Structure formats: C-alpha cells, structure tokens
C-alpha cells in the first residue's frame, strides 16, 4: 500500500515539473493491474523518468562549471585519472571527474606528532616493523613501456606530476587547437556497436549468446558439468540471444601530438639540462592532467645525432653525451611526422630545449628543417637555457633564429624564450611556459 501511494505521488510530481516533459509510461489507471511482484520488478528508484534521481551527464556538468566562472565563482570540477596496473607492463586507465566541497575542517596534518598512525592487531613487540611499502609508487612496477602503447605511457613519472599538472591547468590552454581529421574532441560522439542488448539488436553476439544459453541450461539441469551434452537438446530462451546494439560513445581519441625535444650534449651538463627538463616536466604534467588521453607524446634527444626515447622517464633521466648539432633532431621529428602522417589527424606541438650551442654556425640545415616543422605544427616553442659563461652574448641558436625572421613571419606558430640557467626559479620557468604557449 505504502509503495503504491508513493509511486503515484512521484508520477504526479513528475507531471508537475515545468522544465522537462517526457513521456510517462508508468502504470495505467487500472487498479487491478497492481500487484506486489510487478511493482517490485518495476521499481526503478534510479530511472530518470521519475524525478527521484535526475543524473546529469558529464558534459552538462562541465558546462555548468564554465557558467560558474561567468557568475564570478571559482570552477569546481577537476579531472584526474585512476590507473589499475595489469600484467605485462600494461595498465587500464579511467578518467574521473572530481570535486571538493570547501568547508571549515580541522587540519590534522600539522601536529607535534607528525607521524601518521592507524590501528593494528596481532603479535609483535613495540617498535617491530610489520610492513613495508615503496615510497615511490612506481618503483618495482617495472618500467620502459613504449610511447606508442597508448594509455600506459605516462607511468614512470613521479607521483607529484599529477599535483603539479593540476595547478598549472588553471593557467594554460593549448594554443591553435583545431579539430582534425576524424578524431574528435571530448564533446563529440561516435556511434558504434558496443552496447549489448537482449532479444533484439543489429548484430548477434554469438559468444555472449552461447554463454547465456549454457547458463540457462545449467539452471534447467540440461547440462551436467561433469558430462558431455548434446547441443541439440539445449533449450534456447529468447532472452538468451544477445545482440550488439548501436550506441552513442564518447570519442576519447587523441587529437594532439606533443613532441618533447632536448639537447643532451656535453655543454648542457648541470643547470641548463635541469632547467630544460624541469620546464618540460611541467608542460608534460599539465598536458597529462588537462588533456588526458587526448594527447600523445613523443620524446627526442640529440647530441650530434638524434634519437627517440620511449617515455618521459627516460627523457628526463638521460645523461649528457657528446657534441652538438641541432638539425638532426628536427630532421628526425619531421621524418616521424611525415611517415606517420600525423598532421592529418592531430594538432602537433613541439617543445625544444637547448643551451643555445650549435656546431653548425649559420644554422642553415637547422632552419630548413625548422621551416618544415612549422608547416605541420600548431605551435613550436624553443627554450634556451643559457649557460652562465654565455652571459650577455647571444647564443648561436638565438642568432640564426632571430636573423631568419621566423619569429615575426610565423609568430602565431613559433615562439622562443631565453632563461639564465643559473638563476631561473620555478616562477620564471612557468612564466616562460606562458610565453611559449600564449
């Protein structure tokens, strides 16, 4: 009784709503159609047809969040990812929205006893160590996945990169971002045969249908698990037929490729290398945080020759080597773009870091390659982390780039910034990123 009344109220309430008018297929007025069994089977407290829950989609929520900014309140929705490591150096990743409600809470972190404490039980003396955990969550997990392995590529990076990315996200946006080819943005959908449906659909899913038939017949005792059975004796319930059905799916395909390129020649040793990698680390963290799997990354290092390294971790940790030619790096970069035809489907971004040294004094070959790169890329940003002994003077790279006129001719697509490697602080590095991408 209780329930019936409740349901009627809900229906009534629904109709009273001014905003949304949807067709109501709830029970008709026939009082004899009501019975407990039917009612319980049909009880859907979570169906959006009832006003009981009215779950918003992620897109609606993100729109709402943008509106907040216009209304003068801080944005509240952030994105993070949850990773589940699988065997064979692979991992499954989901992107999750998060939000926090600001309130006055007690801060437990600042106390005289700074150690975290929890409970435990069992044998052992006070002081005895009963468990260990790696401080760096990635140690011991195995490393070195290739850059091409999609979602598992960013695994080796330190845990605080996420945090860093979160902060930087508020400041940056990728410039000149366009929709390219058939790869779409977060908000577009593709229609694929992904969802499963019983009884009807576009394509019979044979494997699932067979499984379902087997399940039904186990329940009916037609199949004895220990014995052979004759498939022709199996009973097929119409509900066992499982079809693939056309459904709307969000397209999470990557739509930008970012190349990180750096000089690791002898002269870079010490401060310049540190500045360049920490700047690239910030850019990388930010991209991973804000654009998630929508961004592919590739890493190139060079001395007199250039080579691709598999992941950011290797890129970050690479030790210094020999002399310096810049052009092979851009040559390799262009080759990758051309052979993989990346410009068709992706926005391309290039970040290059150097101390400004180049054995090719006039930079002719380098400029040729750079011009090619600029045709493909939405933005190319060069950072020069000057050594202290180059103080006051222009470096080789600076000289030939400035005289090439590219900085003015292609100013939408090409930026350069110079830092004093010895003195640069984190703030200056962030400012420099802004210059490169704004």
């Amino acid at each position, binding site marked *: 009784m*209780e329930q019936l009344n409740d349901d009627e109220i*809900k229906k009534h*309430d629904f109709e*009273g*709503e*001014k*905003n949304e008018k949807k067709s109501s297929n709830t029970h008709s007025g026939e009082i004899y159609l009501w019975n407990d069994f039917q009612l*319980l089977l049909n*009880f859907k*407290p*979570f169906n959006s047809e009832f*006003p*009981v*829950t009215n*779950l*918003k989609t*992620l897109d609606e*929520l993100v729109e*709402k969040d943008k*509106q907040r900014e216009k*209304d003068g*309140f*801080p944005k*509240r929705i952030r994105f993070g990812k*949850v990773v*589940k490591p699988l065997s064979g150096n692979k991992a*499954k990743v*989901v992107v*999750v929205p*998060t*939000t926090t*409600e*600001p*309130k*006055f*809470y*007690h*801060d437990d972190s*600042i*106390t*005289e006893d700074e*150690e*975290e*404490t*929890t*409970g*435990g*039980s*069992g044998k052992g003396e*006070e*002081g*005895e*160590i*009963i*468990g*260990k*955990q*790696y*401080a760096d969550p990635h*140690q011991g997990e195995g490393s070195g996945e290739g850059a091409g392995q999609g979602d598992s590529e960013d695994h080796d990076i330190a845990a605080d990169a996420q945090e860093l990315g979160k902060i930087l996200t508020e400041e940056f946006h990728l410039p000149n971002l366009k929709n390219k080819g058939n790869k779409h943005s977060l908000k577009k959908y593709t229609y694929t045969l992904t969802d499963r449906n019983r009884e009807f659909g576009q394509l019979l899913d044979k494997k699932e249908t067979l499984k379902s038939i087997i399940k039904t017949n186990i329940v009916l005792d037609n199949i004895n698990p220990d014995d052979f059975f004759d498939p022709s004796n199996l009973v097929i319930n119409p509900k066992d037929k499982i079809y693939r059905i056309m459904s709307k799916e969000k397209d999470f395909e990557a739509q930008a490729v970012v190349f990180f390129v750096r000089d690791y020649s002898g002269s870079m040793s010490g401060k310049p290398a540190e500045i360049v990698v920490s700047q690239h680390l910030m850019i990388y963290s930010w991209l991973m945080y804000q654009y998630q799997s929508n961004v592919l990354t590739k890493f190139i290092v060079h001395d007199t020759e250039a080579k691709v390294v598999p992941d950011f971790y290797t890129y970050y940790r690479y030790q210094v080597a020999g002399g310096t030619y810049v052009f092979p790096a851009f040559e390799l970069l262009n080759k990758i773009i051309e052979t993989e035809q990346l410009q068709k489907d992706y926005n391309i971004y290039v970040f290059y870091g150097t101390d400004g040294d180049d054995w090719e004094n006039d930079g002719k070959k380098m400029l040729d390659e750079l011009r090619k790169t600029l045709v493909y890329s939405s933005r190319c940003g060069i950072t020069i982390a000057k050594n202290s002994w180059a103080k006051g003077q222009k470096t080789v790279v600076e000289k030939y780039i400035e005289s090439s006129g590219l900085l003015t001719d292609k100013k939408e697509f090409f930026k350069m910034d110079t830092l004093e490697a010895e003195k640069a602080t984190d703030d200056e590095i962030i400012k420099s990123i802004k210059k490169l991408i704004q």
Partner: protein
Amino acid sequence: MEECKIRARDAGLVFDNETLEYIVTNRDMLELSPKGMIPTLYDYWVNDVETIKKKEIYKLYPSNPYETVINTRPAISFYNDNNPDWLNIMIFYHVLGHIDFFQNNIFFRETWNYDFAGKALADKRLINSLRSEYGRWVDYIIEFSRNINNLNGYNKILSHYRNEKKDETSEIIKYYFNVFLQDIKHKNTNYISNQINIFNEYISNNKEIGETLFLANINKQFPEFDAKFKKYQQSAEKQKHFNDIIEFISDKSTFLNKEENLWMKQVIDIVRETAIYFEPQIRTKTINEGWASFWHERMFMSDDRIKGHESEFAKINAGVTSISRIGLNPYAIGMRLLKFIENQADKGKFEYDFQKINNIEQRANFNNNSNSGIDSIFEVRRNFNDFTFVNTFVNQDFVDEYNLFTVGKRLNEKQGIFEYYIKSRKAEDYKKMLIENQYHPPLINVNIDKTNDKNLYLVHQFENKQLIKDFIPDTLIGIEFLWGNQVQLETIEIVKQQLANHDTKFINRKVIYTCKNKKITKTQIDNPKTA
C-alpha cells in the same frame, strides 16, 4: 524474514514491525551512495560528479556491497541482487541490528519524529519548483549552505531533549563556574573544584539563602563579577534563539530577508535539516556497525538456516568483522568492544567491588556471576555514541585481550620505503588514535558584539588544530553571499619554526580573515605564543 524478526525480538531487539526491503544492483548502489542512500534526496550536481566518478572507478575496481539500511519510517534496506538467499538471512539480522539502533539510541532522538524519506521528497519537490523559477541560483544557494552545513547545531538541538529534566541551578551560578572561572579568570581545575565544594557546603548549610551568601562572597573577591555577568546575559539573550550560525545567518541577514530573496531561506533550511538528519549516523559509526555485526553473528549462528552454509558464513563474516594486521575496521572494533563489555559485565567487572581491587591476579579472576552482560550492552546501545563508547570502555584489558596496537608509518630514506611498525600497545594511545579518527567538525560561533549589518564576525574555537587553510577563502565567499556583506573569521594558525638546533617549534598565531566582494585578506592580530 518475518521469522528473523521474531527471533530478533526474542533476543531483546526493539523495532517497528514495518520494514521495506529492496533488491538492487551494484550500479544502483553506486548511484545512491552520494545521496546518503536516500532515493528521494534533492538533486545536486556534486552528487552527480561523485556518481560518475564512482561508476568510472567501478570499471577498474568493481565492488559488491551486501546491503545498506536507511533510517526512515518504515526503515528501508537495500540488498544486492547477487546475494544468495542464505546470505540475505544473515544480512537481514545485521539490518535488524541497525534498525534497532536507529530507533533506540538516544542520539537519534531528533529523527524519531518524522519519516525522512517523505520529508526529503517534499524538499526535493520544493527545490525542483524553485529551480524552474530561479534556475542555477538555487544550486548556488545549496552550495553555499552546504559549505557551512557541518557547523550545524546538532548537539545543541539534542540537548533540548535532555533539558526536559529541570535543572535547578541558577543562571548566575552556572555562569560563575562554566564561564567566569574558566574563560575569564583561567583558574585551574583544582581551584574550580574547591569552589564547587564551598558552594555545596553553603547550600547544604542553608538551602534558602546559601546561594546569596555564596554570591556575596564572590563579589567581595571579584568586584567586577556582577558587571561581567550582566554583559554576558545581554549577549546570551541575543544568541539564545539560534542553534547554529546557519540559523543566525538565515534570520539576521538583511540580504536573505529581502522580499525577493526569501526563497533562499527555504533552501538553506532544507540543506541544514538534511545535514542534521545525517549527524547521528556519522557519530555512531563504530558502535552502530559493531552492534549490527554483534547481532548478525549471534543470531545467524543460532538459526537453523545456517546449515550447509557454515563455511561460507565463516568466510564472509570474517571478511566483515576481522581485525586486520594494519588498519582500522569500525565493524570489528565496535563488535569486539561490545563483546568485551558483555563479558566484563557478566563477571561484574563494572561494579565497585571490582573497581576497588588493585591486585592483578584478583582482578583477572574476579567473577561475581552477576550475568548482567546482556542488560549492559542494551544500556550501551541506548546511551552511547562513538566518542563516549570508545572513551569509556577502551582500557588496557580490552587492548590486551584482542592484541591491539597502534601502527606508525615512517620513511626509511636509505631504502626509499615506508615502514609500518608497532608504535604502542598502551590503551591510552590506542584510545587516542580511535578518537582522532572520529568525526569532529570545528566549533564556530558568531561574536554578537562585533557583528552588524555590514559585518558578520565569526570566531573559531581553537582545539589545538587549525582549519584547513585551502578551504577557508571559498567557504567565506559563500558565507559572504548569504550574509550579503563583509564576513570576518577569527581563527588560530599553527606556524612551524625551524630552530637553530634543528628542533621544530610550533607557534599559535591568531589571525583574522576578511572577505569583502569575494576578495580575501588575512591579518595577524597578536604576538605569537608558543604552543
């Protein structure tokens, strides 16, 4: 299920006969949990974000909750659709334990007067109709109210029920002991208890004029006492009508009381009352789960329907109620503490005859066969919440009996690992750890004297913990919106200082945050004192 109810009643549990049970899927559980499992709760986007997040995480880490019960009338419980039948019987006992707890524990007193599912539905409809008129601004009001909904006056409201018993002490005497001696004169406990003894002597010598004589004496000692009391009375008069700052803002804000903004007060009320409804549940987690686990174990093991499922039961029960090597499980601790209390009470160990014994051996062997255990735990179920439960009953005997200890976590820099080690087996440390883990929102009051239309002055009562700094600005912006004008918050921050000898020193600094036109400024207002 009716059979279960009969058995539970025979065991002494008390609950309404009507209950509603629903079988739901994991997905349904995920969608309901951000709403505190109340299907009719008002919609709010934060809950939607939470649901989407949970669904995504579920793809990687599927979970399979067995049940949930909500404190409505009739009590509604949800069962996972993949529970086997025998398991649902065990779970139903667990559920009955919860229902009994909801309906008898005095901390739920406020929820006994109405059915929350019905109220929530009405609230939800109201909010929906306001949304059709005021659009997204309804959500902003919900948001700003939720920013302060943990500062609700749950305890104060509950205390009204206690005050049904008449308290014969006069206001002025209460003021003398509770406020004047402690907050103004900063006297120590010794002094205060001496004064109480003196007061009691006066009263017992002369019931009629003892109080007057006592007060005359105070006035001699503290000539300013009378004036202070008058001032206190005036400001107490102003504050008296408000249970918490949410009510205060709602009542006094000129912005909210404008004709065109009155609808906002309805929304604020809904958010506040919803928060108050959830308060007792948050504050009885350990004891409530302990109570339900205690009964499902005891009742299902004596139910003949367990036959054939003994080992499956053992496995699931252990999963729910085992205490882990490292980590805290409220079900497990609560259940063990109840068992411990029952056992102790059976032997008469809460009686004075036992308390006065000092000899270890005599204490261990003490048993007066009082068999009052079962009565004792029903007493506990009626009158205790998590804090009083843990604070009263966790002692060394309990910690020793179940081999409990606190675990510390420290970094071993050489090996790059965190080490977990047994930090302490002392009851006082264990108790402290349990209490630290409990819900305890800060206490924030309005300073009436410094508050007017143009300025709302809030004071945080410092309890050796500062507020989380990151959240202060956004919370204040919300309060400013509701108040319609400048808001100030007086609080204390702990500053860590590195000394020359590498020791760290903690300094408390009083600061005032001011929020005007969504801009936050912070000023320090006194000289640092060492913590």
